[in-house]
């Protein structure tokens, strides 16, 4: 099978998965009484006054399959409901908050991935020696330490005590909003890192970077644990292979064998984990964003969930699943590109 056929087949497989995601969210919604779940069909605030009408109009009292068709049609048209909590269509809110999440996810993932690979490799090469113990302890502590706890401690020390930075995305969001209103600051992309530079505001850029540091520390510490583990075990397996012995026997240096022969082969499972990691992070970092009051999609949903905003939580779950599935798809295609055996299988 060629690479193109493989990609086409993989894309076709996407359809049942996406349909499954919609079905599951629909099932979750079915648990909620009709008057309460009617908000997912609302498109503007005026309709909130007239919920019984929505129930009738969208047939929320009709057989389940009819309701599913209605729901599917709405979702395909991009209507994910209206948020009672935020007073805005959910999709609009999610898309508005998405750049913040993308910024933090994409910026911290290279750190997580490279740190994880480095520590994992070092641990495997020095098996049962100090670096290995360090990596073990770090990965176990990383999986046991709740990210909200680490976040709180960092906030207490660096934000509240030392006053080095603040929580949120910028120090003074009010000024920024005012400037957007005045027209002295233009929003080109929604990504503050890019927009601040495009506006020629270097001070704002530095401010944004400063606000990203603490959440990034939390993410690197917590998320690299799995990375270290996977790299370590995969490296150990690769180092035990006969081609490594052969490479050493033929007189190659230890360094060359480890980094060229063993690590290249060991990185294959690491790519999968990295893909899942980035996909998961792009879907929102509920806890990290909530702790640092960072206005991404995760904190958007978490806040709404507290006040029982059905449309936000269900639409968000669908949103994050779609991103997760797409990230998986990209990893699979990358895989097939790197490792031709997969296409043939």
């Amino acid at each position, binding site marked *: 099978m060629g690479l193109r056929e493989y990609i086409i087949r993989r894309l076709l497989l996407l359809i049942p998965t996406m349909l499954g995601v919609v079905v599951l969210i629909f099932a979750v919604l079915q648990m909620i009484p009709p008057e309460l779940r009617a908000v997912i069909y609302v498109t503007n605030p005026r309709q909130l006054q007239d919920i019984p009408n929505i129930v009738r109009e969208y047939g929320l009292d009709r057989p389940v399959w009819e309701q599913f068709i209605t729901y599917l049609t709405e979702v395909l048209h991009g209507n994910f409901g209206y948020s009672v909590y935020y007073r805005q269509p959910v999709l609009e809110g999610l898309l508005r908050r998405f750049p913040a999440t993308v910024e933090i996810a994409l910026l911290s993932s290279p750190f997580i991935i490279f740190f994880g690979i480095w520590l994992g490799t070092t641990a495997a090469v020095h098996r049962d020696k100090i670096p290995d113990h360090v990596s073990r302890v770090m990965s176990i502590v990383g999986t046991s330490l709740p990210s909200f706890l680490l976040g709180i401690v960092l906030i207490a020390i660096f934000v509240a005590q030392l006053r080095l930075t603040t929580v949120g995305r910028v120090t003074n969001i009010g000024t920024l909003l005012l400037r957007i209103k005045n027209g002295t600051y233009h929003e080109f992309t929604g990504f503050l890192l890019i927009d601040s530079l495009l506006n020629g505001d270097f001070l704002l850029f530095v401010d944004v970077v400063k606000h990203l540091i603490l959440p990034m520390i939390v993410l690197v510490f917590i998320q690299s644990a799995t990375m270290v583990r996977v790299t370590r075990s995969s490296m150990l397996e690769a180092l035990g292979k006969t081609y490594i012995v052969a490479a050493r026997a033929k007189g190659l240096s230890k360094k060359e064998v480890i980094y060229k022969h063993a690590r290249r082969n060991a990185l294959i499972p690491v790519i999968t984990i990295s893909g899942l990691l980035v996909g998961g992070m792009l879907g929102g970092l509920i806890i990290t964003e*909530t702790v640092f009051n960072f206005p991404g999609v995760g904190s958007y949903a978490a806040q709404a969930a507290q006040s029982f905003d059905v449309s936000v939580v269900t639409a968000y779950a669908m949103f994050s699943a779609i991103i997760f599935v797409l990230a998986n798809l990209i990893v699979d295609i990358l895989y097939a590109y790197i490792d031709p055996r997969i296409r043939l299988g």
Partner: protein
Amino acid sequence: MSSKEEVKKSAKTPNLMVKELKFTLKKMRDTPLSLIGLSLVIFFLLICALAPVLAPPKWYDPFRIPSTGTYGREPEPPSAEHLFGTTSYQTDIFYGCIWGTIHAFRLGLVIVITSVVVGLALGLIAGYYGGIVDEILMRFTDIIFAFPSLILIMALVVALQTVTLPFTLTGYTRLDACIIGIVLVGWPGYTRLIRGEVLRVKTEDYVEAAKASGASDLRIIFKHILPNTIYPVIIVASLDFGTIVLLAAALSFLGLGAPGDYADWGQLIYHSMDWVSSGLRYWWTYTFPGLFIMLFCLGWNLLGDAFRDILDPLYRRK
């Protein structure tokens, strides 16, 4: 096989089991990290056992933290009266941490047992009968795996709060919703694990022999397949304890779990968020509940890590 030989063989099996168990214990002794894990878990079990003495309950529901002392707004620092100090609404942190331990074990047990029972039942059905049932069940697990778990649980918790359940697990709708949500997202993992085991065992000679001798499906499942597949699931599930408690704490931290004065570590951390803006001044509000959560998870994870290596046949004898 003559009946004499059979007797001999069955007598031999326990010996083998004892030998393996001894070997496992010996291996554990050699890994100091697993011993630390074990002692942490035992420490928390002791706290559970001694809870009524350490922190005598004042109200009918022992999981509601008494808010005694002066009714000032600010948390009080650790003192003889409040060993770990107090947090918002003058709730006693020491009491919350102690009874929070029981609550954590209770949550973990309820969630693990329910998910395993569901996982076992569906995994056995899927693996044993195969065909369309298997296909549907596996596609369904695929869909659940397509969601980041915490996000799906959050959606379920919100939805479940509107459902009036015919039973109550904790007496609080929100907490019940959390438990059910975690179970609903957690069973697919166990189902897949047990299904794989069943597929492995299904083709073994003893199952074929039982089939040939006319045993019913139920008999084969319960007499031959279940005993040979259940152990990995039980081990994996019991080691998920730490992760589950962490997940429940995260939900409480997000304000979706335990109610205000409930003895739940995540809930205490949620309260401490009110005081974090004063820097290290109210350090006790997050340090103590945080230590409890962390050490609890650390204990289970250390134990789990060691067990995975010890019980993995590939590494066991190395």
